[in-house]
C-alpha cells in the first residue's frame, strides 16, 4: 500500500510528455516549426515592403526574381505578399470558425448525451443525416445562402450583419458557413464522452448532494470532456482551412480583392500551362500547413488520449 506519492502537478507532466514526444518525432518538430512560420508570416504580413494589392502592370506574370521572390500574378501583384496575406485569412478562418464549430458541437453533444432518451435519439439521428450529406455540398449551400442574404440588398434586420460581412471582405460568411458545417464530429465525440461520464459515481454523488444539471455540466462534464474537445479541435482546424480554400476556389468564399490561398489557386489554375509558379506557391502553402496541422493534431491526440489518462 503506497502512501501519498510525490507526483508533480498535472500541467508540468503534460509539458514534460510534450517535450519528450517532440524529441522522439522529428516530423513533429518540423511541423511545429512550419506552423510557427505560417503564424509569423500571417502576423507580419502588413509589414512587408511590397503590399499585396500593389500592381506592377509592366511585370505581369513575372517569374520569381530577386525583387519579387515568388514572382507576380496576372495583375502584376507580388505573389509572396499575397501568400502572406492569404495565410492571415486562413489562420483567422481556422481559429474563429473552429471556435464557432466546437462551441456548437460541445453544446449539442452535451445536451444530447446528458438528456439522453428521446432528445438524444432525435439529435443524433439529425447528426447522422447531416453526416450522410456531403460536407462540401452542404458548405456550398450555406455559403451561397449567406452570401445571397448579406452581400446584396440585405433585409433591415440583417443590416448590421451585412455591414460586418462587407467590411470583412466576405470572411464573415465563410466563418458562419464553416461554423455551421464542422460541428458534427465534435458533437459526436462529446456526446460519447458524456455518455461514458454520466453514470460515473462522482456524478451520482453530485446529484445526491443536490446538484442541478447545469452544475454537473459545468463542474464535472466539461472539465472531464476537455481532452476530447481538444481532440475535436485537431480535427476541425485543418478541415476548416481546406473547406475555406475550396469555397474561395469556386468563388463563394472570400471576395476577390482579398487574397486567400483558395482564390490564388483558382487564379493560378487559369494560367497553369504558361505560368505554373502561380499555382505552385499557394498549393504548397496549403499542403504544407495541412500536413503540419495533422502531424501536430496526432501528437496532441496521443498526449491527451483519455484512455491513457488517470
Amino acid at each position: 500500500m503506497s502512501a501519498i506519492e510525490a507526483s508533480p502537478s498535472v500541467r508540468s507532466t503534460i509539458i514534460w510528455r510534450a517535450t519528450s514526444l517532440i524529441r522522439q518525432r522529428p516530423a513533429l518538430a518540423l511541423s511545429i516549426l512550419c506552423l510557427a512560420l505560417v503564424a509569423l508570416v500571417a502576423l507580419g504580413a502588413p509589414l512587408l515592403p511590397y503590399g499585396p494589392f500593389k500592381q506592377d502592370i509592366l511585370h505581369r506574370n513575372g517569374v520569381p526574381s530577386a525583387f519579387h521572390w515568388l514572382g507576380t500574378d496576372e495583375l502584376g501583384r507580388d505573389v509572396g505578399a499575397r501568400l502572406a496575406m492569404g495565410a492571415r485569412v486562413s489562420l483567422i478562418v481556422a481559429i474563429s470558425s473552429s471556435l464557432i464549430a466546437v462551441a456548437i458541437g460541445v453544446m449539442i453533444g452535451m445536451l444530447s448525451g446528458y438528456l439522453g432518451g428521446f432528445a438524444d435519439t432525435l439529435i443524433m439521428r439529425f447528426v447522422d443525416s447531416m453526416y450522410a450529406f456531403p460536407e462540401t455540398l452542404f458548405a456550398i449551400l450555406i455559403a451561397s445562402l449567406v452570401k445571397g442574404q448579406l452581400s446584396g440588398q440585405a433585409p433591415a434586420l440583417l443590416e448590421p450583419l451585412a455591414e460586418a460581412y462587407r467590411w470583412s471582405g466576405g470572411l464573415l460568411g465563410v466563418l458562419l458557413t464553416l461554423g455551421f458545417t464542422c460541428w458534427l464530429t465534435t458533437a459526436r465525440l462529446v456526446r460519447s464522452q458524456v455518455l461514458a461520464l454520466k453514470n460515473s459515481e462522482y456524478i451520482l454523488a453530485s446529484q445526491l448532494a443536490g446538484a442541478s444539471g447545469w452544475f454537473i455540466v459545468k463542474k464535472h462534464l466539461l472539465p472531464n470532456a476537455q481532452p476530447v474537445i481538444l481532440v475535436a479541435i485537431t480535427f476541425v482546424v485543418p478541415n476548416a482551412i481546406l473547406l475555406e480554400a475550396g469555397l474561395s476556389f469556386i468563388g463563394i468564399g472570400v471576395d476577390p480583392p482579398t487574397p486567400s490561398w483558395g482564390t490564388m489557386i483558382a487564379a493560378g489554375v487559369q494560367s497553369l500551362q504558361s505560368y505554373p509558379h502561380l499555382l505552385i506557391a499557394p498549393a504548397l502553402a496549403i499542403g504544407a500547413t495541412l500536413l503540419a496541422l495533422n502531424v501536430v493534431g496526432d501528437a496532441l491526440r496521443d498526449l491527451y488520449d483519455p484512455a491513457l489518462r488517470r
Partner: protein
Amino acid sequence: MHSSDRREQQHRKSARQRSLLEVKNLSMLFPARRRLGQARAWVRAVDGVTLSVISGETLAVVGESGCGKTTLGRAMVMLARPTAGEVSFDNIELTKLSLGALRAARRQLQMIFQDPYGSLDPRQRVEDIVGEPLLIRGVPRRARRERVAELLGLVGLGPDAAPRLPREFSGGQRQRVGIARALAAEPKLIVCDEPLSALDVSIQAQIVALLKDVQQRLVLTYVFISHDLAVVRQIADRVAVMYLGTVVELADAAVIFQAPRHPYTVALLSAVPKLATRSSTSQAPPLVQGDPPSPIDVPRGCRFHPRCWLRERLNNPEICVSAEPFLSGGDKHLSACHFATELVRHATLDFDASASLSAGDSR
C-alpha cells in the same frame, strides 16, 4: 467528551425503533430485449421489497452479485426512480416528490460508493470534492474551507490532503475522501454500497472502524450493502438477505448468524471460508450450486427452489414450486421459506463466527 458520548448514547437509545427510511413494495424493473422501442422482457432487479431502516441502526443488505443489492441501495436514495412502490424518508414520501423537491429533501440521504477510483472526479482537488455539497448549499468560501478541513480530520486525513488530486491517494485514502464528502452533506442516513470490496483486508478493518466511529459521533444510520459476511458481522445491527431481487430473510445480526431461517442464508454462511476447520460433525455444509437464475425469467413458486438444498433433503415438496413464500415469522425474525421451522433440524451449522471472522476491531 465523556458526557457528550453518554448523551449521544442516550440519544441513540431514544431514537431507537423510530423508522427513518421506509421502503414499501419497491420494484425496479429494467427493460431488456428491446424491439422497436418496446420492451419485450423485464429484468426484475428489485422485485417487491419491503423494509424499514430504524434510526441509528446499521442495516446490512447481503446477497450474491446481481441479486439487486446495489439497485435497491440506489432506489433507497432515489438516484433511480423505482418502477413501483414507495420510498419514504422521515415520513416524507420521496417517490411522490417532484424532481426539484426531491433534490432538497434527499440531502440527508447520502451514499458511499464501491469504487474508490470511479467515485471521485479525477480533475477535482480533494477540497473541491469534499466541499461540493457545501458549495451546492451555498456555503461561503471561507466557511467551506474550514468545514472541509474539519471533515478531513474527522476521516483521518491531514489538512495537507486538501489541495491534492485523487490520483495521489491510495484506495483506502480515497474511500476516506468519499466518506468525508458524504458527511459534508450532513446526512442522517448513508447507504454504503460495498465500500470495502475494493480494498485490502487490512485497510478494510480501518475503514470499518472509521465508519463505526463516525456513526457514533454523528448519530448516523447506515444501510450497509455487502457480500462479505465477515464485515457484516462486525458492523451490522440487523441483516437483510437478498436473493434474486427479493428479501428472503430479515433479522437481528446476532440471530441471523446463529440461527438462520432460510436455506439460502445457511448456504451463504457456510460458504464463508474459515481459518480453523473444526472437526466436521455430520454432513458437508450445504452450498448453493451453480449460478443464480436470470432475473428476466424468475422461477415460479419459491425463487430459490432450483438451487435449494433443503428442498432436496425434504424430497422436493410440491409447495416450493407451486406457491411463492412471503416474508413472515413475527416481528423479529422474518423469513421467506415454507419450511423455515424445519430448517433447524436439517442444518448442522458449524459456522463459527468468532473463528472465521478475523479482521476484528483492531485499528
